[in-house]
C-alpha cells in the first residue's frame, strides 16, 4: 500500500548534544518506498551514544527494522552505546529477532571438490547405463507377458497414441518432407546441369528420400514432437504419484504406459515415412519441372529405373527402428524424471537429445549393415 496522503514519507530527525545523538523516526516507513539510510543520517558525526526513538503516529514495517538494524550494527562496530529503550517493546522484539536470524543464518555450502564431482558423474553414468538396460529388459518382459495374454494390452490407448503421433503429425511431416525434396532438387541441379545430366535429378531425389531422408526427417520430427510429449506426460504422471499408484496396484508401468506408446510409434513411423517419401519426391518433381523443365512423366519413369522395392524396404526397416528409439527415449526419460516441474522440463529435453543421438548412431549402423548385406 502506498502511504496515506496525510502521513508524510519516512524521515529521521537528529538532535545532537555533546557525544550523544538522538534520532527520532517519523512518517510512514514502508518497505516498498524510499527511506533514509543510517549513513545519510550519521553524516560525519561519530557519537559515543546513540538513542533511537519513534515519533507519535509513525507507521512502520520491516523498512524501519532495517534502519534500526543498520544503526545497531554501526554502534557495535564503533563501540558506541546504542540506546533502544525508548523504542516500543514490539519493535525491540522484532529487532532482536532480526539480529538472531542474522547471526544464526549460515549459508548452506553446496560446492563439492573436483574429485567428488568426477566420482559422482562416473557413478551417474553407470547408474544411467544400468537404468537403460533395466528399462529395455522390462520392455521385453512386458512384451512377452502381453503376447501370452494379449487381452491385457491397452488397445484403446494405443490407437489414441497412433492418432496423436501419426495423423496429428501429418501437417508438419508434409511441410518438412516437401521442403527437403525441394532443397535436394536445388542442390542436385547445381552439379547435374554442368554435365547435362538434368534427368538424373529424379534418381538423386528418389534414392535419397526412400533410403535416407524420409525416415531420418520423420524421426527427427517425431523425436521433437512425440518423444518430448511422452517424456513430459510420463514425467508429470510421476510427479503426481500416478506411476506409484500403478505400482502399488501391481500393474507394471511399462506394460500399462510404455508398450502402447512404443507399438503406436513403431506402426506409425513406417507409414509416416512412406508418406514423407511421397511428399519429398513430389517436392523434388516440382523443382525438376520448374527449374530443369523435366516433364512429370519423364521424372517418374527415370526414378523407377533406380528405386526398387529393396530401397523402399530398407527405409521402412530403419523407420520402424527409429520409431522404437524415439519411443524408448521418450518413455525412459519420462519415467526417470524428478518429481518437480523443472524435472519434467529436463526429462523432455533429455528425451529429445537422447533420441537424436541414438538416431544418428543407429543410422550409421544401418548404413554399414546394409552395405555388408548388399541391400
Amino acid at each position: 500500500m502506498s502511504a496515506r496522503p496525510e502521513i508524510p514519507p519516512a524521515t529521521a530527525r537528529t538532535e545532537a548534544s555533546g557525544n550523544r545523538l538522538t534520532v527520532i523516526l517519523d512518517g510512514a516507513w514502508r518497505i516498498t518506498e524510499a527511506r533514509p539510510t543510517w549513513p545519510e543520517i550519521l553524516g560525519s558525526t561519530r557519537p559515543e551514544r546513540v538513542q533511537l526513538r519513534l515519533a507519535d503516529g509513525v507507521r512502520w514495517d520491516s523498512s524501519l527494522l532495517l534502519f534500526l538494524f543498520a544503526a545497531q550494527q554501526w554502534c557495535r562496530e564503533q563501540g558506541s552505546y546504542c540506546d533502544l529503550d525508548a523504542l516500543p517493546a514490539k519493535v525491540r522484539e522484532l529487532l532482536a529477532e532480526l539480529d538472531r536470524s542474522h547471526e544464526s543464518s549460515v549459508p548452506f555450502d553446496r560446492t563439492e571438490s573436483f574429485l567428488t564431482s568426477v566420482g559422482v558423474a562416473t557413478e551417474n553414468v553407470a547408474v544411467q547405463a544400468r537404468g537403460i538396460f533395466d528399462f529395455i529388459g522390462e520392455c521385453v518382459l512386458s512384451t512377452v507377458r502381453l503376447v501370452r495374454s494379449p487381452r491385457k494390452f491397452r488397445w484403446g490407448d494405443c490407437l489414441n497414441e497412433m492418432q496423436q503421433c501419426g495423423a496429428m503429425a501429418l501437417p508438419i511431416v508434409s511441410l518438412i518432407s516437401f521442403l527437403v525434396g525441394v532443397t535436394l532438387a536445388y542442390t542436385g541441379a547445381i552439379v547435374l546441369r554442368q554435365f547435362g545430366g538434368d534427368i538424373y535429378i529424379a534418381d538423386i531425389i528418389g534414392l535419397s528420400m526412400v533410403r535416407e531422408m524420409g525416415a531420418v526427417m520423420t524421426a527427427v520430427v517425431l523425436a521433437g514432437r512425440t518423444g518430448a510429449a511422452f517424456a513430459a506426460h510420463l514425467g508429470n504422471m510421476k510427479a503426481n504419484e500416478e506411476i506409484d499408484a500403478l505400482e502399488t496396484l501391481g500393474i507394471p508401468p511399462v506394460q500399462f504406459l510404455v508398450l502402447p506408446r512404443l507399438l503406436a510409434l513403431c506402426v506409425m513411423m513406417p507409414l509416416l515415412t512412406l508418406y514423407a517419401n511421397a511428399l519429398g519426391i513430389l517436392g523434388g518433381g516440382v523443382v525438376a519441372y520448374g527449374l530443369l523443365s523435366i516433364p512429370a512423366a519423364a521424372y517418374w519413369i527415370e526414378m523407377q529405373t533406380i528405386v526398387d522395392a529393396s530401397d523402399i524396404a530398407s527405409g521402412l526397416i530403419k523407420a520402424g527402428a527409429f520409431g522404437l528409439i524415439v519411443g524408448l527415449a521418450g518413455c525412459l526419460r519420462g519415467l526417470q524424471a524428478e518429481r518437480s516441474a523443472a524435472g519434467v522440463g529436463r526429462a523432455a529435453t533429455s528425451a529429445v537429445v537422447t533420441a537424436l543421438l541414438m538416431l544418428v548412431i543407429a543410422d550409421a549402423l544401418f548404413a554399414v549393415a546394409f552395405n555388408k548385406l548388399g541391400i
Partner: protein
Amino acid sequence: MSLMTQGGDGAGPAIEVAGLECGYDGKVVLKDVSFTVARQEIFFVIGGSGCGKSTLLRHLVGLHTPTRGTVQFLGRSFTDADAAGRREMLKTFGLLYQGGALWTSLTLRQNVALPLEEYTTLSRREIEEIATLKLAQVGLLGFEDYYPAEISGGMKKRAGLARALALDPDIVFFDEPSAGLDPITSRKLDELVKHIRDTFGTTCVVVSHELASIFELADRAIMLDRSEQGIIAEGRPRELLERSRDPRVREFLSRGEK
C-alpha cells in the same frame, strides 16, 4: 507486517465486498456475495466441498474477474482499478496457496526475496536480511538455502507464508492452510496465523473447512452453500453453532464440537 502505528491505527474495514458474482465460463458459482472484514481480524470463509470457497478467494485476489460487484481493499476499489492501480494494490496483500506454490528452481531464501527484488529498491544484502528474518519468523531458520523439493509439506506451507509476508502486506489470504497436514503441524500453523495477526496487525482471511481451526482462530466467519450459491450465515463460529436456525450451519459446525 502491515504498517504498524505508534499510538493507534486507522479505522475502516480492510476488505469490503459488495454484490460479488463469481463464475467460470458463463456458469455462476456464487452470486450477490457481500461482506466486510475489519482490520486485524481473522476472518474465515467456511463451507463444504464445492461450495465456492476457493472460487471466492480467486476472484477476491484478481486471479479471475468477477462478473458483477466490487471488491475494496483498505478503502480502494480493486475491481475498478486500472492495471497500474491493481499492481500497486497487489503489494497490500499476500496469498498462501494450498501447497505453498513455491518456485521449485529457487531456494527458500530466493523464493522470499523475489517479491522484494521486484517491488523494492533495497540492496541485495538488505533483501537477504529480510528474507532470512521472514523465514525465521515462520520457524525455518537454517533452511534458507534448501530447495522446496528438500523440505516437508508443512515446511513448504510455512515457506509459502514467509513469501506471502515478504512485502509486509496488510492482508494475508490463506487457502486451506491445514489441508494435507497432520493435526500437530496444523495446530502449529494455526498458532502462526494468530501470531502474525497479534504481532504485525495483519488482517487474515482464511479459506478452510477445518473445524478445529475455525473454532480456535476465527473472529468471524461467513459460511457459503452450494445450493444457495452464496452466504447462508455470518458471525462468530461459536455463536453460529449455538444460535443459528439454519440446520445446514448447525450440522456443518456441530461435527467439530467436542
